[in-house]
């Protein structure tokens, strides 16, 4: 509080962050490198931890990493950078007229500029019993600790949702010795990230690891016992599954309640312009809580891009604009290589180059449109994912190397003169 007093007396404008997750903290880091002294900075973070790498929660759950391993910025870092860190404080209100943020503990923190980086909250499917004991989600360190603890005395887990998060949760729980069933509403897992072939290969591999799958299974209700603990799942088609733990990995919803309550324009997310400003020019938003040109975000990369633009604007350099880019996803399950980027499912007027090694379980698909790579799905051998992603982003004309493209950079030789292909869009 002493610092607080000092800061308020300073003549510098006050910058406040709500949320110290991946996008918010990246914005802060970018800003500090651009202009370390421009603002008096405060960060309000609900979690009881410094800033950590959320995406590494999966290896933590699988027992491959510890919480310490995945910490990015600890308390000392905030101190060193003269950032006031309100750890474990939840922002509950914003007064846009007085320009101040109120926390659950009643602190009032004035701002000149405010950055909302509240991320998103896991979506709990609206079925009876979704709030029973031992029905969990997978978003933060507390969730991971809960799961780890339960896995020690429960045996049967269901993970609802066969997306990236669900599969990583299932794998982690399986690694902890649980008997895991993935419950998926569609006929193919990871149906948004992979095409049918890759999805099938992935399912085969996961089944070999002992994970079971219940496909086309729409959950009707979650059943509890006398102690209000979960004991089973009932599906719309009459199937049932006895479990003593459920993880919901059925997607996330931008965390916009705070923004909404102060009257900021929101749709599904906080609406922002190309420099990440909300309808209130003093308030910025980045990361999963935003909606930019109609689009929501669920990955780190766009959050980082937004962070760069936002920091740039806060530093009043004012030239950067955020544009959405193709996205690459990679599944983080040890021993499984899956990668996808760009558009790869039934892209109109496109051609698909495929490579398939059934015995090794290697599969690659490149989607070509107008001599450019627009999408890629890789399974088994994802070594060249990064390079393909680069080609997609740079919209390179790949026609000179089309014959060899799928085999990766090492096998492609640009014809003389064109050794450094320029992005077509540059």
């Amino acid at each position, binding site marked *: 509080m002493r610092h607080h007093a000092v800061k308020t007396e300073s003549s510098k404008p006050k910058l406040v962050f709500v949320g110290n997750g991946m996008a918010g903290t990246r914005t802060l880091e970018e800003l500090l490198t651009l202009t370390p002294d421009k603002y008096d900075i405060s960060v309000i973070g609900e979690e009881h931890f410094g800033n950590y790498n959320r995406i590494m929660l999966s290896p933590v759950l699988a027992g491959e990493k510890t919480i310490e391993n995945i910490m990015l910025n600890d308390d000392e870092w905030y101190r060193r950078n003269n950032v006031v860190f309100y750890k474990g404080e939840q922002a509950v209100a914003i007064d846009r007229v007085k320009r101040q943020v109120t926390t659950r503990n009643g602190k009032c923190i004035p701002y000149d500029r405010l950055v909302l980086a509240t991320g998103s909250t896991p979506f709990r499917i609206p079925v009876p019993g979704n709030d029973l004991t031992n029905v969990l989600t997978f978003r933060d360190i507390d969730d991971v600790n809960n799961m780890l603890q339960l896995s020690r005395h429960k045996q049967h887990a269901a993970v609802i949702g066969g997306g990236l998060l669900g599969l990583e949760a299932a794998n982690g729980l399986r690694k902890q010795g649980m008997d895991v069933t993935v419950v998926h509403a569609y006929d193919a897992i990871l149906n948004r990230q992979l095409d049918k072939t890759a999805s099938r290969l992935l399912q085969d591999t996961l089944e070999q690891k002992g994970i079971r799958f219940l496909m086309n299974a729409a959950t009707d209700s979650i059943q509890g016992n006398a102690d209000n603990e979960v004991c089973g799942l009932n599906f719309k088609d009459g199937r049932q599954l006895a479990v003593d733990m459920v993880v919901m990995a059925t997607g996330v919803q931008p965390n916009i309640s705070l923004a909404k309550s102060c009257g900021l324009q929101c749709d599904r997310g906080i609406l922002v312009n190309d420099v990440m400003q909300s309808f209130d020019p003093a308030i910025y938003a980045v990361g999963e809580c935003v909606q930019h040109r109609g689009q929501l975000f669920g990955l780190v990369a766009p959050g980082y891009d937004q962070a760069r633009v936002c920091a740039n604007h806060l530093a009043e350099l004012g030239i950067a604009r955020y544009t959405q880019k193709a996205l690459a996803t990679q599944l983080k399950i040890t021993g499984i290589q899956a990668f996808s980027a760009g558009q790869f499912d039934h892209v109109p007027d496109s*051609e698909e*180059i495929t*490579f398939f*090694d*059934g015995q090794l379980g290697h599969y690659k698909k490149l989607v070509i449109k107008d001599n450019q790579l627009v999408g890629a799905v890789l399974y088994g*051998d994802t070594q060249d994912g990064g390079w393909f992603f680069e080609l997609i982003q740079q919209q390179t004309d790949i026609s000179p190397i089309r014959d060899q493209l*799928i*085999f990766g950079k090492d096998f492609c030789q640009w014809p003389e003169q064109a050794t450094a292909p320029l992005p077509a869009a540059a």
Partner: protein
Amino acid sequence: MVNRSTCAYCGVGCGIEIHTNSDGSTSVKGDFEHPANFGKLCSKGSSLAHTLTGEGRLLHPKIHGLRASWEQATHYVASEFTRIIDEHGPQAVAFYVSGQLLTEDYYVANKLMKGFIGSANIDTNSRLCMSSAVAAYKRAFGEDSVPASYEDLEIADLIVLTGSNTAWCHPILFQRIKSAKAARPQMKVVVIDPRRTATCEIADLHLAIKPGTDVALFNGLLNHLQASGKTDAQYIQQHCEGFEAAMASARQAGDIQQVATLCDLPASDVAEFYQWFADTERTLTCFSQGINQSSQGTDKGNAIINCHLATGRVGKPGASPFSLTGQPNAMGGREVGGLANQLAAHMEFNPQDLKQVSEFWQAPNIARTPGLKAVDLFDAVAAGTVKAVWVMGTNPAVSLPNAGKVVQALQQAELLVVSDCIETTDTSTYAQVLLPAAGWGEKDGTVTNSERRISRQKGALEPLGEARQDWRILTDVAAAMGFAEHFPYTTAADVFREHARLTRLNRHSPRKLDLGNLAELSEQQYDELAPVQWPVLDNMDSQRLYGDGHFSTDSGKARFVAVAYSGVSHPVSPDWPLALNTGRIRDQWHTMTRTALAPPLNAHKPEPFVEIHPDTAADMGLEDQKLARIQSPWGSAILRVNVTDSLRRGELFVPMHWNDQWARGARIGELVNPAVDPISGQPESKHTPCRIEPWHPQWSAVMLSRDNLPIPDCDYAAKIRGKHFYRYELAGDATATDLTAQAQQFADTDAEPSVLYQDPRQPAMRSAWLDAGGLRTCIYIGPGNSGIIANADRNWLSGLFGKPELDAIERKALLSGKSPAGVEDCGRTICACFGVGEKTILKAIREHRLTDAAAVGKLLKAGTNCGSCVSEIKGLLAAN
């Protein structure tokens, strides 16, 4: 155990030691004691052990495709021949034999046909190779006798190599000339050949003569010799006849300028050649197919011989006209009389010789008139006048001109019997009866090489399966036809002794062929027979013939023959503007039935190709390494274009070897015109008018497989055998619809590919089948102009078949067709013996700053065995 034998391939007749190791495997080495090669072997000879496999061998007699016993097969052949002879007379049957047969085989075949069947319809593939030389020698010397010896190659001061790519076709003789020239640099070599062949490496002068004009060149030489007073008047007067007439004819060739214009040569080069010839007493003129395979081949031979007679240079040390024969036993065939226009043992169809031979054979039914020569023979089969033909050890469906017509003839023959060591050839495909013959390494008998040297060819191995010696097969058929008492042979020596006794009849004539002393050999002496030149008589120096000026004619004098240049039979025309030349390449033999089995030999020139001058290629819109269609009035072929300025403009060169067992659409014999020399009957294989155009296939493919797969039915195909694999280069005109199905069909499998690559646009697909991690088959299909077909690294892919299992990076790279980075690709094989590739050599040249071939050899061993790749290594050095 060591067995002494001779090489199965060319007429050099190199001595070979076959080493049989304790584990039963065999290896082959040059015989240091053999006077033809003194221990050296060329790439073909060195690879002979590779051909000693059971692969593709015919193991059992077959009648109509079904396995039969020898008894059944012998009986069937004998009774069918007998029936046809009874119904249509002896002229309705024929034998077509081969310079690959041993003298003993030839002898029995000749005796059976001419003596007992009573027809002279026995001809040989030597007809295609040196029958013009035979006819020329006979016209000039009264007998088919080669006056020279290999030693002359070393002691001559001027060697004229005309129509002979000695470097590739007689590699060991080339090596002998080359070493002699290195030792005596004053020795001069003139190469006369429309192409700048590998032989030109040692040439002091190369005359890139216009095809077919050789008579004019040598008539001009005779003219020049007389005009410059270099003729030997005394010799001509004492030992020759017909000089004036020959001179009169030669004068028409005109002066040097006129000759140069006609032959399309620089006058100064012609003058230099004439000058050297005039001034050099020890002049040896070696000639081969370039002279012989012509509608004027016999006249060309005599034009050469005329010049040697005019200067008295016959049968003298380092001085002779010297025919180099193609096949290992072409000479042996000539000696027994295995040509339709000879009777036996250099005797003729004249009353006196007929009487002698029929008495010797006790054969009252002996044929009285010459029979049909090769081309006429198959024409007669096509026409139905010859109804039964027995083909032995040769492949006329490939090697004869107008081969398409030959195939028709074979298809409609009432009876086609084929004896061969290989089961499936383009000819055997049509046979009703297949008889398994012993192959090289198993065969037992004698051969005669280009210098009249008889050597034992002695088998080291038991014949595979039920294969038998050809003489034995013939003897059994003769017996089954009722001639048992006249064919009492139980060993090869029995046959040889009778042959030698028959040659003794020549003692009553001026003829030289006389194996007199060999007629009494015991079995053991025969077995141990050291290489010997004929005539084999006491106190007779057989190294050279006619040095004393006494010839085999009745008068004892040599005959000049008046010859005049008459041009090719089918000149080029506006419709057929290019001249097609055919010939051998270094590492293949004939129709590849054996050489194609030896992986190192397939690496030098893996695909059938057509060579063309860059200017002509540009005129015709052709690109190097792309495919082209060649057409002549007789047929067409599709071949890979090799652009090279070693050819004259307007001319094409195509190797003679490829056929349906190793390719599709590449049988060049189909295009070759059927014109023959009126005297020798030898076809004009060196000049066919034709045209060429680019051929753009709808799709192309390259496939490699561990398995010996059938050649897919498509417009273009070449199959190449490598170590542990076969490679297939394929292309087609029809739009491919289902590439996956097509690939499976090519790979001859129903199994799903283990690895599959597809690109819908091109269309392109690549797939591979692996088992237990090892590569079985891989195939790449794409449009003709696609990078994958042009750039797939065939050498790297080939290497994968030697591995029990592919490692991860290899497996990943497999369908890219590109070796994974960091692994070096050694390029096209240059040195077949040591498997050294072009890129390896280029790299060594650059990195070690090598400047001569010897240095390359020191570093990489390339070119240090037979050295026949040295000229190519030099080419690489020069290009750097």
